[in-house]
């Protein structure tokens, strides 16, 4: 880290001359801006502009309909719950992967990326097969009275699968960089393991943990493919907001679909900004540069 930061700082020092030495600034930045605008910015703003055509009253009526509210509550609630579980277990998993050595560790580490690589529809039908009442895990949970498939709990399970690598892959490099001597000093000074972890290690991990949580949460809110198969999709109970958008589209209710989409986008962006603010607060509080 020190070398890379040094080069960056060095480069900022000679900013004026560097810009002239390396060619292609105008070309690459120009192309980036044009492509970004054409593919992402203009189409995305179209959604907002189209929702304005609805008019305030109609918009409000659509998004406060009980079925819409229930689906938004489920999408955001399940994503929040899954991200919390991922934060806890992601912390344990990245700790174990960085600090301990055990057989097949590299293989297990590589497997953490599976949710990034496995298509969501495949994950969806596989999780449904596992957690259905006659599935490998479903028939174990059935006697305990726990139903996963075709309930809101199924949504959470799918979102745990989708979000896990975001937490682990954000925490791992930070854990690798932590200065062990500080922990060892705490231990020599008589701190228990738990004290060392909660007072020394954890404060340094907070910003990364929050980032991983936020990424997993954001991904979970909009997730569709892995959820539709396992959720059961009952209106008011296990119907997620993205599915309701598709239902509205199939009924040619474009205005309704757009209104839900805009609410989802605004809630997601708002939450991301909030989490970013929280992160900056955590960063300055721990004074990690």
């Amino acid at each position: 880290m020190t070398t890379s930061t040094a080069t960056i700082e060095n480069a900022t020092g000679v900013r004026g001359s560097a810009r002239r030495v390396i060619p292609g600034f105008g070309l690459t930045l120009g192309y980036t801006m044009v492509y970004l605008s054409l593919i992402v910015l203009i189409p995305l703003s179209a959604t907002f502009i189209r929702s304005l055509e609805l008019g305030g009253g109609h918009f409000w009526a659509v998004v406060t309909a009980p079925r819409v509210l229930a689906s938004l509550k489920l999408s955001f609630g399940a994503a929040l719950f899954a991200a919390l579980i991922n934060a806890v277990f992601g912390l344990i998993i990245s700790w174990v992967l960085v600090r301990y050595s055990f057989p097949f560790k590299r293989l297990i580490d590589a497997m953490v990326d599976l949710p990034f690589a496995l298509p969501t529809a495949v994950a969806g039908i596989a999780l449904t097969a596992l957690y259905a009442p006659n599935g490998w895990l479903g028939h174990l949970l059935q006697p305990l009275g726990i139903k996963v498939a075709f309930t809101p709990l199924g949504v959470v399970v799918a979102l745990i699968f989708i979000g896990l690598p975001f937490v682990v892959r954000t925490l791992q490099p930070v854990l690798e960089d932590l200065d062990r001597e500080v922990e060892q000093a705490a231990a020599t000074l008589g701190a228990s393991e738990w004290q060392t972890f909660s007072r020394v290690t954890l404060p340094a991990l907070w910003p990364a943990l929050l980032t991983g949580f936020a990424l997993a949460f954001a991904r979970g809110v909009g997730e569709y493919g892995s959820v539709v198969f396992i959720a059961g999709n009952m209106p008011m109970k296990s119907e997620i907001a993205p599915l309701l958008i598709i239902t509205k589209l199939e009924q040619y209710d474009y205005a309704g679909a757009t209104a839900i989409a805009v609410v989802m986008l605004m809630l997601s962006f708002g939450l991301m900004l909030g989490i970013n603010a929280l992160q900056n607060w955590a960063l300055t509080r721990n004074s990690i540069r």
Partner: protein
Amino acid sequence: MSYNFQTSYSTASRKRPRRLYLGRIILIAVTLAFLAAFLLLPLLAVFTQALAKGVGAYLAAISDPLAWSAIKLTLWVAAIAVPLNLVFGVAAAWAIAKFDFRGKSTLITLIDLPFAVSPVIAGLIYILIFGAHGWFGPFLQAHDIRIVFAVPGIVLATIFVTFPFVARELIPVMQAQGKDDEETALSLGANGWQTFWRVTFPNIRWGLLYGVLLCNARAMGEFGAVSVVSGHIRGLTNTVPLHVEILYNEYNYTAAFAVASLLALLALLTLAGKSILEWREPELYHAARRQQAIQRTRRS
């Protein structure tokens, strides 16, 4: 490293090592159990279900003409979307890593934007623009051009969803590498293209490959966005993931999982490619990971 950790503990206090060891076993057990339940079992389930009715049924499912037309369409879509996002990724990474300008962190945030947009909304925005009731709807209808519920819509939605992948991998790799090498080459008289191909490219090719692998995996596996714009016309606008869904909803589970196993194999190949990259270029890989994590955490 872990050895050091333990010895320092045991010299600090003689009572602790056994408890530490127990804690360690519990944490490793929790990790393995969690990963087995959420990652390994779903993967195993795909292949067991696919082969549940024997190899014959498996081969029949994946050699079905409708499955083949879905595979062909998926390959076409990826063949268009991935190179476009690759060119964009290289351009964006060059601008961001080699130069300093105002609004750089905003630009990085905007590049990441498609990650924060639901795939369903990604499909919806193209219907709002090119659909029958969309901005260009009447124009397209008058000229008999189909974008939505046809292949162009599928390609556009896939480009949107996979937009950040190559850029996201390349930016930290290029930033970790700095620009000293390029400046040296240029001062020795190389021109811009020579510098890129002979100096920059050899340094970034593995990061580039990884970005392309991830981008390709997502392009071939995208479901939500493509589902909205495809119109589900069998043999024409069905990609492999959509074909899986149709088979599944028809209760043809064995065939659904057989076709799904092809996508699972693609995922395993992607992970293998990533592991080879880590093994070949461990230092570069870790520098880039670190840069990425720091950048994500620090961005405001």
